[in-house]
């Protein structure tokens, strides 16, 4: 027995106080990073600290962030969905086609979400139903979904969305507070509750930690996974509505290569790529970090490709840092 509890009758609920564990957490570290970037940006460029700039900066991550919320849950369950950008393209194409024949705003929203859900269900059937590895399945569906968009649209573009449709991606709820950021925060709260406060969320963690033990504990593993893929599809559909509205047009190349950016936000947010660990709060902060970094570097007119060196390095460093710190601490603790 490793622990020498004097009497087994008195097992406490927790050892650390909630405050202490919060300070030790990944989210806190990430928050420090975000604050540091914010301060750096404020000093590095005079244009950063203006309400409109800050508002514009949020557009750099809101749509990807919304998908990242669902992606986080998929990754926690031990799977991955690389087809999200493909779903987005297909959903946007479907909305475009509907708009051509005169669909109104509510119909477009339903179609965008609906196509997202259907694509998600298709992934879900392959991954949960046929028990195929999600990483390769979604590499396939990534091409399939976007490929269908190419077949439909070819070299054409859909424009001419109804007037009210532009609100989702371009509208402001109040002053500089955009509809997108509000929606992102609402979705964040919903996903926070779903992952951390419901038994569904608990099952997701259990599955990611130990698929088999979760099944033996009476969790309907395949059903949960199916729902997760459907949910991710729905979020990709939602992002399609926002992005299409923001661009005011659809081409099959829309949101090209976003899947990796979405995964980057999730991983940066502390979601363990091996499954079983991570939190929504981390993903939300990671979204802001990405937005602040790319927008800040943009204000300094750093070329995009050089910017990507920063984000790539940041990903590696932020993930490596706790590991290195842990090693050093261990070394110091041991005489």
């Amino acid at each position: 027995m490793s622990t020498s509890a004097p009497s087994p009758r008195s097992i406490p609920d927790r050892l650390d106080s909630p405050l202490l564990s919060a300070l030790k957490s990944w989210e806190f570290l990430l928050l420090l990073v975000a604050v540091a970037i914010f301060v750096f940006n404020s000093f590095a460029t005079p244009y950063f600290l203006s309400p409109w700039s800050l508002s514009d900066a949020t557009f750099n991550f809101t749509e990807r962030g919304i998908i990242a919320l669902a992606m986080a849950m998929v990754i926690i369950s031990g799977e991955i969905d690389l087809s999200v950008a493909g779903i987005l393209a297909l959903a946007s194409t479907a909305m475009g086609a509907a708009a051509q024949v005169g669909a109104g705003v509510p119909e477009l929203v339903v179609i965008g979400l609906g196509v997202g859900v259907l694509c998600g269900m298709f992934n879900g059937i392959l991954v949960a139903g046929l028990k195929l590895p999600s990483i390769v399945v979604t590499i396939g569906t990534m091409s399939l979904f976007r490929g269908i968009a190419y077949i439909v649209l070819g070299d054409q573009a859909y424009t001419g969305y109804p007037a009210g449709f532009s609100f989702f991606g371009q509208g402001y709820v109040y002053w500089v507070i955009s509809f997108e950021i509000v929606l992102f925060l609402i979705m964040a709260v919903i996903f926070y509750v779903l992952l951390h406060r419901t038994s569904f969320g608990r099952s997701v963690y259990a599955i990611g930690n130990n698929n088999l033990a979760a099944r033996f504990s009476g969790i309907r593993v395949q059903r949960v996974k199916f729902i997760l893929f459907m949910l991710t599809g729905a979020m990709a559909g939602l992002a399609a509505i926002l992005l299409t509205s923001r661009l005011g047009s659809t081409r099959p190349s829309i949101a090209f290569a976003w899947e990796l950016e979405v995964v980057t936000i999730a991983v940066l947010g502390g979601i363990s790529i091996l499954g079983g660990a991570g939190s929504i709060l981390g993903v939300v902060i990671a979204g802001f970090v990405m937005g602040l970094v790319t927008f800040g570097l943009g204000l300094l007119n750093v070329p995009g490709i050089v910017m990507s060196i920063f984000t790539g390095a940041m990903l590696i460093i932020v993930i490596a840092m706790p590991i290195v710190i842990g090693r050093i601490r261990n070394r110091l603790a041991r005489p």
Partner: protein
Amino acid sequence: MAYVLKHREFILLGAIAVLIALITVRFPGFIAPVNLVRVFDDTSILIILALGQMVVILTRCIDLSIAANLALCGMIVAMLNMIFPDLPVPALIAIGIMAGAALGAFNGILVWKLDMPSIVVTLGTMTIFRGSIFLLSSGQWVNAHQMSEAFKAFPRATLIGMPVFSWFAIAVIAVFFVLMTRTPLGRALYAVGVNPTASVYAGIDVGRSRFFAFVISGMVAGLAGYLWVARYAVAYTDIAGGFELEVVAACVIGGISIAGGIGTVGGAVLGALFLGVVKNALPVIGVSPFAQMAISGAVIIIAVIFNARAERKKGRIILRKAEAHS
């Protein structure tokens, strides 16, 4: 027959044969030997990269930076050739391979020493490598007339009816075959993928084996880098963009299990060839260019379903009665 059916490689070979037959119906010229050689030639780079990726996937890792690595090494050799036109081509190839190995080693060190998940590491290095090309070249292209004749001509020279380009692929296949079946390292790479814990107990350093896998994949990326820029006679930041997923797809089609430990050199080669045939056939049989992406997606999904069924364990049979039946 049972043996043939049991081995994925034969099934894949059959699928490729059927595919070629179907294409030939639409376009008779496709089956001409000279065309098949051309298709092989065109697929060489994919084959080479798929083998490198296979080694990494076998160890339960993935190398998403393989195409960016190729592009960076390609730019390095192209620029060296531009600045020092007298450097002999073999030296450039060696430099390309070494540069690729160094980049692969960087991935490998992070995976080995820091125990970071490879997908995260290579997602990061993918963008870092790409960005480095831009910095290195200041965004300029290296164009055909800036490359020496020898540089461009070497892989194109024909040797016994095939371009040297193809011979490179064949040589790489041979080296990998020996590596995977005849050397302790090759066996260790399999072992690490089949059961990492058991590998530790067997005296195999899991992290170090993965490190070598990344170095190997880096080396082939470096070699492919030279081949790529020499073949297309141009080097710029975006070459081979998005190619990493195609390489992974070739491995998947070839039956390399993404969970590690399962897969053969033959499988990876055939998987790459299958994709190569499809990609070369689509333009000539008049499939709309817009349908190509959807078709390759569908092919990948079908291959995954197929491979998974082949892989699914038969299960132990306890009952005598049932055993007699099977």
